[in-house]
């Protein structure tokens, strides 16, 4: 038997779970935990500059590793500052364990200093949450939190720990074993057989891959299924990289900013095989008019996603890997020459267009130049807005977990701290963060963390001094009444980065921007790469609000 405080017990349980890096910010109600953490030789703490930054660093680590990662904050404002990062993780199914300090139990409910009901606040944005009432409970709660975060459809789990629980001394015998994921759901072989028969009988099938394929580690299986069945394959924003974009069966990203031919291929499909995707409105447009001629096979580990937006003809409640493994021996090899020839014809007639892609001073050209200077080992993170969609369209993603983006919540400010997290988890990789000037300013303080950690993160700042996607929508859909979408002053981002201790270059002033870019990307350590882009360049094609995916404008 060992005597431990609640705080020491949490640290021991995190160590035992294999946690090696955590991001956070200390404060009054979490100080006992920080005191215990300072004695850990296994866990490294990264001090963020804003709790939201810490939340996204944990996300970055989780998104590249697939393993639950931890962030820490104090009570009150520390905890509420995490809310956006937690909600973001919830919508994108990112496994994360959030530990917050709370005022002592005797003061809960008294409106004490820095007291906020973070348990209540995070009910709708976590997979599950706990308010711990004794140190003894931690023995169950901490492993449970990890188990829940990584089982089935992953997600964030919050543990709120009052200060007195952190200080409480208890006798601890043997620690519980590290958490492992729950058993996946039992596979329904009748449904698998039915799905295989539908695939074999289909004339114009399309494989529709979502983020669940990446979470399940099933990308190679999905590609194998596509090749075996001769299935043209589209990916959601979250699935980019599941199939290499230049694979002959890839028809690229679907949806609001997908290529015209992609949405036309879906329009003609007679069978849609949806794997780990959830028929999100940005992906499918007007639901009633999405794939109007197709039967639907839907595979998802979250049973509540089945029949949620579109009724499936065959619904398979299963882990994606298990379902694909069962499907593969039942799907007949097929060439589907006619259908694939028609898909190729649509692609040739309505291709994705990248105007200006030879010019590194244009938006597409800059993205292509970055890709040209890197190999597939690099990780690419983005913020949210026009630059995010351009990167999704133009960057050649070729492996799962190469691409980190805020899909469901669409959080501006996501990019920099998430890129830092990715670099913390995989320091040998180059991590590029494409950002816009609007998004970048939302977590710009994390440049200080980046400088301190000296990580290999390159921020490519595409600056149009505007909230570009708002500007675009006001231009297209609000009678060009531009309001609150352009900035009247422009900060000097190069000076800002240098002020934080991050080297910076300005491509606007480079004689040979392509060479300057390659040099900056390939030098070790952090760097800000600033590039002005044209505010009048919009993201095309675009499905207008409420329209069907086939009613795209532009592109």
């Amino acid at each position, binding site marked *: 038997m060992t005597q431990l405080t609640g705080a020491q017990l949490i640290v021991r349980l995190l160590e035992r779970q294999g946690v090696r890096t955590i991001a956070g910010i200390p404060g009054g109600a979490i100080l006992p935990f920080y005191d215990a953490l300072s004695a850990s030789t296994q866990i490294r703490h990264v001090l963020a500059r804003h709790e939201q930054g810490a939340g996204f660093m944990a996300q970055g680590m989780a998104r590249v590793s697939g393993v639950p990662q931890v962030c820490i904050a104090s009570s009150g404002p520390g905890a509420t500052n995490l809310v956006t990062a937690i909600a973001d993780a919830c919508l994108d199914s990112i496994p994360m364990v959030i530990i917050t300090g709370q005022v002592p139990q005797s003061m809960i409910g008294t409106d004490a200093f820095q007291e906020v009901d973070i348990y209540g606040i995070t009910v709708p944005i976590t997979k599950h949450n706990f308010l711990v009432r004794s140190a003894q409970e931690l023995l169950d709660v901490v492993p449970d939190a990890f188990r829940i975060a990584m089982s089935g459809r992953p997600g964030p789990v919050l543990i709120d720990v009052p200060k007195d629980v952190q200080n409480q001394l208890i006798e601890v015998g043997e620690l519980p074993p590290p958490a492992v994921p729950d058993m996946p759901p039992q596979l329904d072989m009748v449904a698998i057989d039915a799905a295989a028969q539908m695939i074999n009988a289909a004339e114009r099938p399309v494989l529709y891959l979502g983020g669940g394929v990446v979470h399940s580690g099933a990308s190679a299986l999905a590609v194998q299924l596509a090749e075996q069945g001769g299935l043209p394959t589209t990916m959601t924003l979250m699935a980019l990289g599941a199939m290499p974009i230049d694979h002959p069966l890839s028809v690229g990203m679907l949806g609001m900013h997908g290529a015209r031919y992609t949405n036309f291929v879906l329009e003609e499909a007679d069978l849609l095989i949806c794997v780990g995707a959830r028929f999100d409105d940005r992906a499918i447009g007007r639901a*009633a008019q999405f794939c109007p001629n197709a039967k639907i096979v839907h595979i998802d580990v*979250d049973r*509540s996603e089945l029949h949620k937006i579109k009724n499936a003809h065959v619904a398979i409640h299963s882990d994606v890997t298990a379902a694909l493994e069962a499907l593969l021996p039942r799907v007949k090899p097929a060439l589907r020459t006619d259908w694939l020839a028609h898909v190729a014809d649509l692609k040739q007639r309505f291709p994705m267009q990248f105007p200006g892609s030879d010019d590194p001073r244009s938006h597409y050209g800059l993205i292509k130049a970055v890709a040209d200077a890197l190999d597939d080992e690099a990780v690419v993170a983005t913020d949210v807005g026009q630059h995010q969609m351009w990167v999704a369209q133009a960057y050649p993603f070729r492996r799962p977990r190469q691409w980190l983006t805020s899909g469901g919540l669409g959080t501006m400010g996501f990019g920099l701290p998430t890129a830092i997290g990715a670099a913390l988890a995989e320091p040998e990789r180059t991590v590029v963060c494409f950002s816009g000037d609007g998004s970048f300013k939302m977590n710009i303080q994390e440049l200080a963390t980046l400088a301190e950690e000296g990580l290999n993160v390159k921020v490519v700042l595409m600056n149009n001094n505007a909230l570009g996607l708002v500007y675009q*929508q006001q231009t297209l859909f609000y009678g060009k009444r531009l309001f609150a979408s352009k900035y009247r002053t422009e900060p000097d981002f190069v000076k800002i980065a240098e002020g934080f201790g991050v080297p910076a270059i300005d491509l606007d002033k480079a004689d040979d921007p392509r060479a300057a870019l390659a040099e900056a990307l390939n030098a070790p350590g952090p760097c800000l790469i600033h590039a002005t882009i044209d505010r009048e360049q919009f993201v095309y094609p675009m499905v207008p609000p409420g329209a069907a995916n086939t009613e795209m404008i532009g592109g």
Partner: protein
Amino acid sequence: MIEQVADPLPQASCAKVILELDVNNHAGVMSHICNLFARRAFNVEGILCMPVSDGKRSRIWLLVFDDQRLEQMIRQVEKLEDVLAVRRHGAEHEVFERLEDFFH
């Protein structure tokens, strides 16, 4: 980004449905369940909760109107970590009727 243009919410029918939930008994369970219904704009007409057996579990009775979203709602409830089982009863179930004397 862009405003959502969605079809109007389906109108609930008048048919009553009674849900019986077995749940873990601790302070946060009711808030998890009520929050789930509230954030999906699904009205709960009646709610009853009492601990059962040794106090480690509770039973919750919910009175709701049938609605095409109910099936989805039940699946969401089943996903909650503290919900152990959900049983669905028709309007003939008398749990709420027998309490009517207390609501006059």
